[in-house]
């Protein structure tokens, strides 16, 4: 701002309303702008609040699983698995080997599918419309695999307490291997299209930098935390299921800008393919579900268990009263909740086009925030 008698300018309020093609889900921002520059951004949430936690208090444990599906519908398998992990810890149930392998395969395939959604919507937000369709073309193959197994494409109700609900059909493994064989070439296509593209780089580099200390303080997790330089992945640092049997790398970023987050998630897709390939090779035969009684009543206790979702740390806190089929309290914690909380801090002083880029690169979706 000059101190000479410049033109009188005022800040004005702009509403980036809940209906908007680029906010991922229904989220409203009230922006105070000085020309093109965002001075303050206040998020308003609650447009997708479905009171899932209250509903879960009113359902038995197996009945809660479809509710958890809808907690974060882009990665339904992870939500169900988080709940099953917590319940199994409470009740001391151990799922059989084959079930654990199938769970890992489904979780990682779901992670790839979720990252493909992220890839498509991020490119779409920045104006490159074509990668959106390429990402969804690959996702169709994964959804075919899911449909073959459990009949559903989005909310699966597949991972159950004690195992999985049904075994994979015989054509699953060859089809999955076929997908894994052609997937690296497709990732190379995406990389060639966008990575070195100068427009992509200047839209994403040094935009939305999230410093390390701020990231930790705000509870940011998952790819966003790793892009800021902290090498922390719950699959390696607080392992659950059988992830310690697989060999995979954890990519880490340096600067914490949108470009780092983009590169990191592309690399994560490759690593997830590695895990699925190893799991398919090691898949043992056997039971797919431990018998859980129809009157399943876990003993009194409480547990908070967390898993590494594609969007960050997904945690489920369950408190069980001991003598009831229904949980006393189910608290769901999603990664996007904290990411949306930190967003106003990192878009301050940037342009409005950068807000769109940051929201896309942090992969925030509203069902996780609002529940």
């Amino acid at each position, binding site marked *: 701002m000059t101190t000479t008698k410049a033109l009188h300018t005022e800040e004005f309020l702009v509403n980036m309303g809940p209906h908007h093609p680029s906010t991922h889900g229904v989220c409203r921002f009230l922006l105070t702008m000085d020309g093109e520059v965002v001075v303050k951004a206040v998020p308003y949430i609650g447009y997708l609040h479905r009171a899932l936690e*209250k509903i879960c208090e009113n359902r038995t444990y197996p009945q809660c699983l479809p509710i958890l599906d809808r907690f974060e519908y882009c990665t339904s398998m992870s939500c169900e698995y988080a709940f099953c992990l917590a319940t199994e810890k409470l009740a001391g149930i151990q799922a059989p080997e084959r079930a654990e392998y199938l769970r890992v395969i489904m979780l990682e395939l779901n992670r790839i599918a979720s990252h493909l959604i992220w890839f498509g919507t991020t490119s779409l937000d920045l104006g490159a419309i074509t990668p959106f369709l390429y990402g969804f073309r690959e996702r169709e193959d994964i959804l075919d695999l899911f449909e073959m197994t459990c009949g559903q494409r989005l909310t699966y109700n597949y991972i159950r307490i004690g195992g999985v609900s049904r075994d994979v059909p015989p054509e699953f493994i060859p089809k999955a291997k076929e997908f894994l064989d052609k997937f690296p070439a497709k990732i190379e296509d995406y990389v060639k299209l966008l990575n070195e593209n100068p427009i992509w780089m200047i839209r994403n580099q040094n935009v939305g930098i999230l410093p390390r200390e701020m990231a930790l303080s705000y509870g940011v997790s998952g790819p966003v935390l790793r892009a800021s330089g902290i090498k922390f992945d719950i699959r390696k640092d607080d392992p659950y299921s059988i992830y310690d049997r697989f060999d995979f790398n954890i990519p880490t970023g340096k600067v914490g800008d949108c470009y780092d987050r983009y590169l990191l998630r592309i690399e994560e897709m490759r690593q997830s393919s590695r895990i699925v390939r190893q799991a398919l090779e090691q898949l043992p035969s056997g039971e797919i579900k431990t018998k859980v009684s129809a009157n399943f009543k876990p003993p009194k206790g409480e547990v908070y268990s*967390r898993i590494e979702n594609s969007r960050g740390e997904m945690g489920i806190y369950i*408190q069980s009263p001991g003598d009831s089929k229904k949980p006393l309290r189910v608290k769901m914690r999603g990664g996007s909740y904290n990411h949306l909380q930190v967003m106003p801090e990192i878009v301050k002083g940037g342009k409005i086009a950068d807000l769109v880029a940051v929201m896309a690169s942090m992969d925030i979706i509203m069902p996780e925030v609002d529940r």
Partner: protein
Amino acid sequence: MDRTELTKYLLDRFSDKLQLLDTGKAEPVFILKAENLLEFCRTIKADDTLAIDFLCNIAAVDTGDLFEIVYSVASTKNRIRFDFKITMPYENAEIDSIQEFWAGANWHEREVWELFGINIRNHGNLTRFLLPDDWNQGFPMRKNWDAPDFVRMPEL
């Protein structure tokens, strides 16, 4: 450090403030008194063996007799994760805000206030966000909350 070492360390360090409520299941759970909250948080953040730099979750529970607020914390440097909780009666339920230690607590506490009615001291921004702006039907997550269209499912 694994859970037995962690439990031992915490009980030794904070013997007067913490009380173990361990069901042997997963990570250890401790009970803390409300007045020790801020001091405890400051210490576990500054302590080198613990180095708790990550607040995972704040959950409020209505057990029918009391309110409980459960804090789940973790450390990204040392592989540590534990929970601690504070119980309080229904009348005048309030707690201090811990957002000076972990800024991510801001929205979690705001949600606790909005859905349970537990007052958070020194928060600074206790406004509605999940529920509609003109909500006047009480605190929905309490067990004694009722509404005309709220149907309790029967015990099967």
